[in-house]
């Protein structure tokens, strides 16, 4: 099995606001192996982007540890070494706001090279051309500004910028959710190509489970700041166990009878995701759960390994004493 490149252990991120403490991420643990894609899936407000921002260093964690190549980087971004920052890059959801509108594509692509002191000016210029070619954009795009590009092309520039420093891990924060499906297909195939070519690890954050079926090596489902189920992709879609996962899967609109057969029986979802300021006691999902029992509103579920690599955090799956437990509490 491949080496774990990123280990997140009991990560917590709270935000203190005037209306109370927002428990955006609460004791989340997962790992990403070299060359694999972990799909982190959840609805808005589930804390999936906060996880990415904490890993990249935009937020300092409230608690827990983040290890990159066994090196602790739970500190703030200012204390991380330059080499570390160079190895982890991020692609944001909206390329309209993540590219500086007053810079040309060349300046955008050159900036990470300058920051990390890569090569001479001439070499950097050659590298920007090479990066553009990699994302299949013509060379004259170097002199264009972001507003002259289409949404898909901008995202390709953002991907090229992430690749500039030869990272080992890229965090993809909903990179295609603002784009049309035909462009999404192109970008996803490109990302998969880079992964093969450079043995990149991806932490792919999305709300689109159908996309993860085709892209991820493993899938983790987040709800209200916690991971409720994680499994290798095949196993995950063959045997979804958590009631939330089942609700999520049954809510996906599909286009063929074969896909309909893959979906769990229709569960009409009820209620909405509660505010992370007032996290319900017990299992966070009990307010919307169709199989909710009395103890669900008082007892905290723990991560239980049900099958090899398939973990679920639900009280209907009691932890047998001999089963390995992930530290959730």
């Amino acid at each position: 099995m491949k080496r774990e490149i990123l280990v997140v252990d009991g990560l917590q991120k709270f935000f203190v606001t005037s209306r109370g403490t927002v428990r955006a991420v609460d004791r989340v643990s997962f790992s990403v192996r070299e060359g694999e894609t972990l799909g982190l899936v959840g609805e808005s407000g589930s804390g999936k982007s906060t996880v990415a921002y904490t890993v990249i260093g935009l937020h300092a964690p409230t608690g827990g540890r983040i290890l990159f190549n066994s090196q602790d980087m739970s500190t703030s971004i200012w204390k991380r070494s330059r080499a570390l920052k160079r190895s982890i890059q991020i692609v944001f959801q909206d390329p309209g706001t993540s590219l500086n509108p007053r810079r040309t594509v060349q300046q955008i692509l050159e900036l990470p090279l300058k920051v990390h002191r890569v090569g001479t000016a001439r070499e950097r210029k050659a590298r920007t051309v090479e990066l553009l070619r990699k994302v299949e954009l013509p060379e004259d795009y170097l002199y264009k500004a972001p507003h002259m590009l289409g949404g898909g092309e901008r995202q390709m520039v953002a991907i090229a910028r992430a690749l500039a420093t030869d990272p080992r891990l890229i965090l993809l924060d909903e990179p295609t959710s603002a784009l049309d499906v035909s462009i999404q297909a192109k970008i996803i195939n490109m990302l998969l190509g880079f992964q093969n070519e450079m043995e990149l690890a991806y932490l792919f954050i999305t709300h689109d489970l159908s996309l993860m079926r085709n892209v991820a090596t493993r899938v983790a489902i987040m709800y209200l700041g916690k991971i409720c189920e994680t499994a290798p992709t095949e196993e995950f879609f063959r045997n979804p166990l958590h009631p939330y996962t089942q609700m999520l899967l049954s809510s996906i609109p599909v286009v063929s009878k074969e896909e309909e057969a893959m979906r769990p029986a229709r569960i009409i979802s009820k209620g909405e995701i509660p505010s992370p300021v007032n996290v319900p006691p017990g299992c966070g999902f009990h307010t919307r759960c169709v199989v909710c029992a009395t103890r669900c509103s008082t007892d905290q579920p723990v991560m239980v390994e049900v099958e090899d690599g398939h973990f679920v955090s639900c009280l209907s799956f009691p932890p047998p004493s001999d089963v390995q437990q992930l530290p959730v509490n």
Partner: protein
Amino acid sequence: MGDPILQIDDLHVSYKVYEGRLRVLNGVALHVERGQRVGLVGEAGCGKTTTMRCVLRILQSPPGRITGGAIRYRGTNLLRVSQGELQRIRGSGISMIFQDPVAALNPVFTIGDQVCAVIRHGTHKRLTRAEIRRRALGALREVQLPDPDRMFASYPVQLSGGMRQRVCIAMALATEPEVMIADEPTTALDVTIQAQVLWLLDRLVQDHETAVVFITHSLGVVREMSDWVYVMYAGTIVEGAETNELFERPLHPYTLGLLSALPKLTGGGIAKGIPGRIPDYLNPPTGCRFSPRCPNAMRVCDQERPIWTRVGDTPAHEVACFLYGGEGV
């Protein structure tokens, strides 16, 4: 088949910009039967919303201008009616739900004020204040909003996205219209909330026997929400068929490309997508507008526009493509 309640014939719309005229709609034709659920699906910028804005005559003008065609609602051409007549039809005859429930509701009036205003202006009978209030509360109850009395006095900011969209649905149905236009009503919502709202919307329109035009970019949503689907590309309708027929036997190369680019729950990777991008509306291709991106393009496709051809009767299936016979115009 009965008489169509809404019929659009050869609709042309252009936008005047500094560089010239953007020929956005190029002969859009479609019809909606009484009580029918019609889906209009296409990617961003294909003219779905523009078409439906023309129906309610809320196309922003300038820069937009309807340069040809007719829109018939119960036989009257909406492009020729007086403002007064139009005002009567909006609301009580044809209503609309917009994509963004935040922008569709006025932030400084309560939900109750806004629902009451719709009822007051949308019904011809003179109603007492108490009667209006009773109907408004009924409308809020019908969309399953919890605690309608409290909702009535709430402001839009106090509601979640899903609840706001329910309010919009309540407003669109409060005056018992014959046609409702739903413009991407669930695009801004999470998948489980989308499932709730779609389920509710579908039940309500079937109870009220309202005809619906459902605009969306999601093939999955359109499959669940319509009896008949039109596929739109770059300002023209390229294919139309009964829903099951369209998804089991798609014909137009664009429809085929879209379906293959969509990530499936059954896995199997993602096809390459459709090469190129949507044409420049300033100088659109003279022939079929899809021909520059079409894998099956022939010489005739660049020169002539394919006409709308019926290729099957039971189930009905129509397509505008030279591959399936048909002549140019």
